[in-house]
């Protein structure tokens, strides 16, 4: 589908515009100085704050901004709850507390050996080859398998999960029919899995959440399905995009790559910097009460693109914000959001990205972008390379 070209990013932006998808950073840099809260009539009205302090203000303000719609789409779909990400206070807290224990750093540590094994096996699979697609053949394969293990689903289901995610997060922005079909399929899939565990419980998240209660009451099937869908969708695309962006950077910056190979202890610090500079996730909010942010009136009923990636590039908060400095020590980045909706999976994502880099760099210290092929990027809610052809050596 062709979209009308954007002539003015301040008053008519379109985050599906190919220029935005390809390289949004210069657009945001310009907006931040000229028009810190941009607006578009497209998508039935959306605001785009690009400064850290305005993004933060929106993220913290649950009175004027609701999470009941978290993705900017062409048409308003029927509301599809995925608690707690789509929950507002006071329902949000208990819904989030259900999931948090499984995602603490200690709980995630238990999944590290398996993740390491998955990464090592994938890299060993590249032996004897001259290169690979670091997004499709490596980055994408990691979270899909780790989440499958956590949920208690077969690792081999990756293709099915990836299809749903593409349909829900990308195609579904403009195609409600595709979105609803994918939603129906995920619900049916999880219903079968929940049923299986009723007779034979397992040591997995589906079993655990099936038995969860709030205030002593079992959670509804809708709540359960929504939470499972959230874990599946939010746990895969986001992390593969983050991993992909790390490799995109390292393929082009031999000095950073060599430094991490020599100094692997720096990897966790570098991961934070990659998360800042290439933060994958932009959420959205619905304005539910008129309010002013950054001197700009926000009208009830319109949406806000809540760009943590743009906030992370604000030079008012991050010196040399446009430069990736893998040794950056002070890094209060907002890649995992701010306020009550802080990403539940942040500890999992950090572990996966770190292990993905460690295992690859150990075996493939030298690689570069394949000059004969093109890197492509996802569009919409999650930003990351979809095709990232690299050559080894």
């Amino acid at each position, binding site marked *: 589908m062709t979209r009308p070209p954007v002539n003015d990013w301040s008053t008519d932006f379109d985050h599906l515009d190919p220029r935005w998808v390809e390289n949004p950073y210069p657009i945001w840099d310009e907006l931040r100085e000229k028009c810190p809260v941009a607006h578009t009539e497209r998508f039935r009205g959306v605001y785009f704050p690009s400064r850290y302090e305005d993004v933060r203000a929106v993220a913290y303000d649950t009175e004027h901004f609701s999470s009941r719609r978290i993705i900017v789409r062409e048409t308003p779909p029927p509301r599809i709850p995925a608690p707690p990400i789509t929950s507002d206070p006071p329902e949000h807290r208990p819904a989030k507390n259900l999931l*948090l224990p499984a995602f603490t750093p200690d709980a995630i540590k238990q999944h590290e050996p398996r993740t390491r094994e998955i990464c090592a096996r994938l890299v060993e699979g590249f032996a004897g080859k001259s290169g690979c697609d670091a997004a499709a053949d490596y980055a994408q394969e990691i979270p899909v398998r780790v989440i499958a293990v956590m949920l208690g689903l077969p690792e081999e289901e990756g293709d099915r999960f990836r299809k749903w995610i593409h349909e829900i997060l990308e195609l579904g922005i403009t195609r409600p029919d595709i979105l609803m079909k994918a939603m129906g399929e995920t619900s049916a899939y999880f219903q079968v899995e929940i049923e299986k565990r009723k007779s034979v419980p397992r040591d997995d998240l589906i079993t655990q959440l099936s038995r969860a209660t709030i205030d002593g009451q079992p959670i509804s099937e809708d709540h359960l399905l929504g939470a499972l869908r959230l874990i599946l969708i939010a746990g895969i695309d986001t992390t593969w995009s983050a991993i992909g962006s790390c490799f995109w950077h390292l393929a082009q910056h031999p000095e950073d790559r060599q430094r991490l190979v020599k100094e692997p202890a720096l990897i*966790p610090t570098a991961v934070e910097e990659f998360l800042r500079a290439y933060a994958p996730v932009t959420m959205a909010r619905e304005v539910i009460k008129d309010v002013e942010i950054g001197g700009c009136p926000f009208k009830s009923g319109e949406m806000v693109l809540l760009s943590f990636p743009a906030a992370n590039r604000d030079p008012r908060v991050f010196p040399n914000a446009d430069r990736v400095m893998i040794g950056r020590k*002070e890094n209060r*980045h907002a890649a995992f959001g701010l306020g009550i909706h802080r990403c539940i999976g942040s500890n999992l994502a950090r572990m996966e990205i770190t292990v993905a880099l460690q295992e690859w760099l150990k075996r493939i210290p030298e690689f570069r972008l394949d000059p004969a092929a093109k890197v492509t990027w996802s569009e919409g809610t999650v930003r990351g390379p979809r095709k990232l052809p690299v050559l080894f050596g």
Partner: protein
Amino acid sequence: MPTLKVKVDRDKCQGHARCAALAPELFELDELGNAREKGDGTLPNALVEKAWLARANCPEEAIEVEEKA
């Protein structure tokens, strides 16, 4: 030398867990992954730099370093 103390504002903390990763001597996480200072938060001189690092990396600005008489 005045005594320094670290403190996590529990209302602000959202469980990013950066403090516990950067300064495990000073911060710990509860069963939900939210942070609190260890013990009474007394900050030994040797850990002052780590405390500032944790503070500078908390996205919610939930960490306070205070002088205690």
